[in-house]
């Protein structure tokens, strides 16, 4: 579904590559976890795949479409759940979703029904016509997710979709993502919650300093790394214990 070839990104004035000649294939229907410490290049990679950042070199295709030649078709094909809420605080949940849905070309009853359906599944029916500014972090996260899937994308990019949410909201979000995947959506997901990734992902890749240091199913990676019992231990073994603060 996603084919990445020697993809690189070096920011202006940066000494090193944020993503360094990265090769990766993500199969259709996968839930692919992209794990790595802060500054490893996860968000940069997702930003390039979702047309927000121009790669320095390399290329990628999604569902066979090259990003350079099929920019708009590609945008219709993907959904992006950004790390920040990216919603209009003074608009209601319904108004936000209606606007973002319209920008995907949805309209009329089809748009209305899709919004109401998703809002109900994610437990927000009571709050559909309340302003986002009054929502809790968990509620905003759920609306943030719905805004990205109204057009039923084939591929969904999630940049830390459960950061800062309560256990209940996290549970609803993860269950719904599982349902979307079961319906055929390929998911590329980044997170610092390694337990969550271990349970949720069919395959994971650990990325550090812009390159992939290991990839495989969570079980395989745990088995391959001597003396590790879970993904977190594999992660530390691969990326080290040094702090990765950066500015």
């Amino acid at each position, binding site marked *: 579904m996603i084919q990445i070839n020697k993809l690189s990104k070096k920011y202006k004035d940066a000494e090193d590559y944020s993503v360094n000649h990265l090769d990766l294939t993500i199969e259709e229907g996968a839930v692919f976890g992209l794990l790595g410490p802060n500054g490893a290049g996860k968000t940069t990679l997702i930003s390039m795949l979702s047309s927000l950042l121009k790669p320095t070199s390399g290329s990628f295709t999604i569902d066979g479409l090259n*990003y350079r030649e099929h920019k708009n078709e590609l945008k*219709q094909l993907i959904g992006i759940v950004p790390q*920040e*809420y990216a919603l209009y605080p*003074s608009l209601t949940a319904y108004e936000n979703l209606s606007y973002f849905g319209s920008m995907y070309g949805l309209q009329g009853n089809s748009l209305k029904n899709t919004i109401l359906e998703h809002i109900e599944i994610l437990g927000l029916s009571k709050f559909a016509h309340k302003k986002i500014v009054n929502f809790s972090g968990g509620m905003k996260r759920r609306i943030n997710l719905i805004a990205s899937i109204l057009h039923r994308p084939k591929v969904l990019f999630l940049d830390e979709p459960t950061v800062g949410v309560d256990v209940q909201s996290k549970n609803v979000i993860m269950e719904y993502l599982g349902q979307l995947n079961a319906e055929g959506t390929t998911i590329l997901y980044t997170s610092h919650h390694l337990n969550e990734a271990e349970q949720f992902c069919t395959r994971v890749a650990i990325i550090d300093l812009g390159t992939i240091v290991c990839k495989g199913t969570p079980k395989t990676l745990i088995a391959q790394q001597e003396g590790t019992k879970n993904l977190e231990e594999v992660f530390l073994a691969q990326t080290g214990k040094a702090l990765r603060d950066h500015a």
Partner: protein
Amino acid sequence: MHKLWASTYKEFLLLVRDFGGLAILFLMPLLLVITITLVQNDTFKTLKETKIPILLVDNDQGEVSKNIQENLKNSPLFEVQIQSSEGSVKELVQTGKYQLGIVIPENLSKDLNLKVAENVEGILEKFGEEEESIPLVKSKLKPKEIKLYFDPATQFAFRNSIKSGIDQMVSKIETQTIYKAFQEELTDDPSEDIFDTEPFLLFKEIVPSDGKKEIIPNSTQHNIPAWTLFAIFFIILPLSINMVKEKNQGTFVRLRTHPVAYATFLGGKTVVFLGVALVQFALMLLVGIYLFPWIGLPKLDVSGKLPLLFFVAFFAGLAAVGLGLLLGTIAKTQEQSAPFGATFVVILAALGGVWVPVFAMPKFMQVLSNISPMNWGLKAFYDVFLRNVGITELLPEIALLFLFFVVTMVISVVYNERKNAV
């Protein structure tokens, strides 16, 4: 089209949900135009109705100084307060307690009479003499100085207008003294009128009206177009801030992942903010028509001009929106867009002739003013308000305003494409 409509609706909702912002957007321009017109109208009244207290030192104590005093007292401009010394006048004016002090020199009456008598006698003596035998007689009397003390804070234009008024008065007294001297020489009966001393040259102020209805411009007629335009252009501030906010809250980034053109995004903002500009304009007109007469200001006359006025406001609004969109596209933070936007509008207004008429500017600035969209808008508004022109005469300015909008839009789209090209 559906995406444009959705963008427009979203902009509309964002605007109406920000009640404070909306109030500022509509009330501040109204406050601005009311304040400016009141201030300018009161300045006009000051010169016409309200008397300015002035100080007078009469070191002459003669006929001429009495005449000056009488003239000043009878003048609608001044309220005269007599002082005994020049020193106290100097101090009171310098400290700003009075705007003007007049010091009449010693022996003004005596010397003026002597000078005039000398000249009159000289002229009369020369009647009948051969031209070659007329010797040039030079008076030994030195010219007299009437000193005018002005408060240093007094504005140049006001100072000039006072100086000109006093100059006129003194000239009149001098002329009357000359007539009187002639009369004394030519007749024994001082009550006999042998000269008509009334002014022969008069002024009539006419505003050409091209055969249509006569136009009588007043401070409202001048202020509403100028300050309305200023207010319309101030829309670039909320508009650019709105765009920067979208960048900062992540919604613009999200939108960039959607299959929607940047022009559509800008289109939604254009429709809504153009609507705001037109509502602002309508409110300004309503204030001019209904509120101004109620608070003692001249009424705004829009009879028969409304369609053309809204036609100009529409294109002026478009130009302002275009500028706001460009600023919002380029600015990264509110700290960039707000001060730049505010200052830039003031510069455009200054260049456009909102404060100082373009004809009164230095040549170089007059050339520069031609590139200010506010200048084009102001010309078009004055054409409608004060010159009663038709749509054809407005087309050059309208074309420039529209072109300005198109150019700013194109630059915004190209800039965004280059900045965010993938």
